[in-house]
């Protein structure tokens, strides 16, 4: 169809060999922390590298916190955790002004959002007001309090967890806010084999969580990696494919809310991250398909509970490009 695609800018901002090795090391570390969940780990990495936020929807005790902590340690950033409850106030998340008796001035006490990796546990138990405060921070990477704007970390990465939505005392996230997340994943139970390993490893250990993950990136290094990933080449036919996927979600009979333009951007970014993790400097339809399920799963308003069958159906029906 079109002429040979030049690998645009990928030569100068291409991921260098050491960076790629660091990514592999991060993957190994996370896999060590969360055994038997290579696929989930891969998606978490995609989400992290594409500067998206992650929504984990699963039952308690499946290692969500462990994963979030491991990510924080791996990227060498600060980790914070907010346990969301109905009485959690927005300022509990963002931070608040406190009167300093010595200086006779108000000074800002930073909340947990000023960490590099934030785990917002059971986010759907927080009130919509608190949810929206957190979501502003996620989208803008900044916090406005009392008229002053506070910038968050460049590598700010939120892992929010929520219990399955049909439980009591929950405030389900509206679609507009779900769109702020790059992906929705569920961890799921580990396999029998991994559970046996886990039990064996726990013998003699006092803490239930495995040892800390070695930090892979130096401070600020992750955002450089994220920038170079954003420059990975996407052929016109792949972009067309992404757009057609978006159109298919909008015209599907079971989908009430299709993919937004922001969703298209997220999908492309995620595919780029996936390509980087596969050591390629260009995107293929395989990478788009690999990340499509969690990316589309979080943001399709599907009639009924489960969006995954719909996403699979759309992936099967939209024609895949075979060349540039």
């Amino acid at each position, binding site marked *: 169809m079109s002429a040979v695609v030049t690998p645009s800018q990928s030569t100068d901002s291409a991921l260098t060999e050491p960076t790629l090795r660091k990514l592999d090391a991060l993957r190994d570390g996370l896999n060590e922390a969360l055994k038997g969940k290579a696929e989930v780990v891969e998606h978490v990495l995609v989400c992290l590298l594409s500067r998206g936020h992650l929504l984990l929807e699963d039952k308690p005790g499946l290692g969500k916190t462990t994963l979030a902590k491991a990510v924080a340690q791996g990227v060498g950033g600060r980790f914070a955790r907010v346990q969301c409850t109905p009485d959690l106030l927005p300022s509990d998340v963002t931070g608040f002004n406190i009167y300093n008796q010595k200086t006779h001035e108000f000074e800002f006490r930073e909340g947990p959002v000023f960490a590099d990796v934030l785990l917002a546990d059971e986010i759907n138990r927080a009130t919509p007001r608190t949810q929206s405060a957190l979501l502003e921070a996620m989208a803008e990477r900044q916090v406005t309090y009392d008229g002053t704007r506070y910038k968050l970390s460049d590598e700010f990465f939120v892992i929010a967890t929520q219990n399955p939505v049909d439980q009591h005392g929950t405030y389900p996230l509206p679609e507009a806010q779900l769109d702020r997340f790059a992906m929705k994943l569920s961890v799921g139970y580990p396999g029998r084999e991994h559970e046996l390993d886990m039990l064996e490893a726990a013998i003699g250990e006092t803490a239930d969580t495995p040892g800390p993950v070695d930090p892979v990136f130096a401070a600020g290094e992750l955002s450089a990696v994220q920038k170079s990933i954003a420059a990975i080449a996407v052929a016109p*036919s792949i972009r067309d494919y992404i757009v*057609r996927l978006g159109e298919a979600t909008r015209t*599907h009979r079971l989908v009430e809310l299709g993919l937004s333009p922001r969703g298209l951007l997220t999908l492309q970014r995620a595919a780029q991250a996936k390509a980087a993790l596969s050591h390629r400097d260009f995107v*293929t339809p*395989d990478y788009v398909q690999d990340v499509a399920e969690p990316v589309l799963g979080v943001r399709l308003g599907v009639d009924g509970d489960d969006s995954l069958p719909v996403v699979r*159906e759309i992936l099967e*029906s939209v024609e895949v490009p075979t060349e*540039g």
Partner: protein
Amino acid sequence: MRKAEKTTTGFRAAVPLTVGLGLLAASILTIASGEDSGRVWVFAELVLQAVLAVSAAVWIGRKAKDWETPPSVSPVLVVLGFGTFVCEPFYRTFGVGRPGEIVLMDGLKHVVLGLAVVSYWRQYRRLAVLMSLFLMMFAVSISTDRAVQIAAGIFAAVALFWAAADYWEGLRDSLIAESKGGVPRWWLAGVAVAFVAVLATASAGSGGGLQNLTGFMPSSGGTDWYDPYARDGVRDGDAVVAGSKDIRSFAPIEDAPFMVDDRPTLYDVFDDSYEEPVKNKKYQRAISLVQEFAIDRCQQRLAQLKKAGKEFSTFRKPKDEKQKGRMSDRDGGAMFYVAGRTPLHLRLRAYDLFDGEVWVEEDEEVGVFNIRKVDGKPWAIPPLPPESFAVFAASEGHMLKIIDLDTAVIPAPLHTRGVHIDQVDRADFYKIAYNDMPALDRDAIPPLTTIHVASEVVDRDTLQDEWRLGSSAGPSYSAWPDHPDWQDITRLADEWTSSATSRWDMVQAVTARLREGYRFERGVWTPASRRTDGEPSDREAATGDASDDGQTAGRPETDRLPVSSFLFDTKAGDDYHFATAAAMLLRAKGFSTRLVQGFYASPDAYDPKAKNTPVRAEDVHTWCEVYLGTRVWLTVEATPGYEVLGPPPTLVEQAIAALAAGWRAVSDRPLTSLAITALAVFAWIFRADLLDFVDTVVWRARGFTDERSRLLATAGLLERRGQRIGLRRPAGTTLRRWLGATYGFTFDETSFLRSLDAASFAGHVDGPPVDVRALVARYSLAGLRKRHGRPRSGRLTFLRSAMFTRSDSVRT
């Protein structure tokens, strides 16, 4: 382009297919309607419309991505459609006008092409194809040009593809989940090929299955129309009567200057066809009658008419070899032409009295014609019989163009109900010949006269119920020869009709016996006559009929009647033998019968191009008619190979006739058909292997300039290879994943897949070069079949498994 293709075109070949279909239909119409103009003009028009349509389609295709819908389609289409009508008066002022329906179709053609050009948008595409289908059907119905038939076959095949692809596309749109497979193209191709084959055989066969379609499409040459540019139509009104403008209008005018000379008289025609009668000097025959009082009158008339030469002897010379040669030289010139349904018995003479050897002509009936205006035309109506029988199916219209017929009797079918010659509006121009034959009151019908004849056709299915009572047409119609052979004939008639319960059964039984048990041969010798005349005995030796010689020599009565000789000895005869035999056998059962001579317009002689049937001198025929009562007669055709016109065929009957024609075309060439079928079956079974072989050879022969195109072509080849055994890549599966899973690539080949990915989506190739030739050779079609357990043909496996299970069960 991409985006436009997605939202508008759907399947990939839609636009080329639609434009192709539109152009095909347009070309068919151009060829069909351009028979009058020169070939150069037709060719120029074909090229012009193809170039215009294709270039317009290409241009629109480039624009299509910018347009949500094409601007101002409807006004352009209106201009295209009506432009033809606006231009027509100008054409006509220059004397090159066209018939009304052609102008209409030409406008439609322009609209179709316009719609095909904008077929990037689905709403226009479907309309374009629908209209082109109509265009094609119309064009096929007005022409018998071979090119038109071939183009129509191609159109059918392409349209079938189009329809199936469009249907599948529609399905995919509405039920995304269900349509996991692609379009089953192989099946479609098979069906399309079969369809084209049937169509081709039907149209190429001698029967001309396509001819059955004529008359379904309207044309301008009707009875109520006047248009100087009209084509010849169903009733072929004005254009035919004029007969001056267009040679196709009816008759071959070329031989008109030569026609005046040496015109054979009708007697010559009959005698040439049936050979000369042989005079029988020894015996005077007589007739026998039931009603004794009438015998004198009949005997008198017999003698009188025989003297006047108004007779037909059934005792004739055989045809010799020299004459046979001469006969075949002479055919060609038609005596007249018939338009209308055939087979048709056209009557010229009737005989009632028969003395065993000679038939004498029927008495003339006095009757007057009445002139009645029908649609402003004068029709001569003969005296109509009282309506007492409900045996008539429908009225038939026939048209005769007399070229060279030296008789005043109009060769009309039985039960003529009206005769029309243009501008002849006086009843005294007509008279009645014999009992009920229309004739002109003059010496002969002028050459080139066009005569319309309306008649009624007997529906034979009604005879069983309607024809119950016997009735007599008069003593002369039931008289029998006063001869000892009469006893034999009566016995034979009794024997043949022994199981018949009704009168119609009897007629059918006699006809069937004659048609099945006797051989029809022109100019065959009736051996019994050898004794009465010394001259033919050496000729008898020439025919070498030795067995009959011995048989008849042993009999004391040497003067066997020719008809009984035919019935009992030779069992072979000319059509007058059959007719005489039928007449006599039926008279023996109490029927009134007569012998009729005239012409037989055979359906085999039908000229599809001129849409008429020429009747030549050798179409002279003799048959028998049996009396039903109240001046209704029934044609009894005892001669094998001759048929009687029945009621018009229904659509189903026509379809069956078309199928039969197709079958005949196949069965006439059994070896060729068998070879083609075997070849087709072989090609069908090994279709995947053959295609894959060709594909691989082409792939190998291609010189690749760079690694990237080489990798892409290889991937394409491997993908097609899988498709050939039914492993189609689902639309949503990436090529890499599909190739890996389908071929079960080992680690080596994953480097091929990696390189392929780079070649496809990065535009450059990284990694080491891949030996694609070795790859293609390693992952062959046979290996793929084995891997997926897909044998060559599902049906063959089914057979094989059926055989194996049977043998297994025997073993256990």
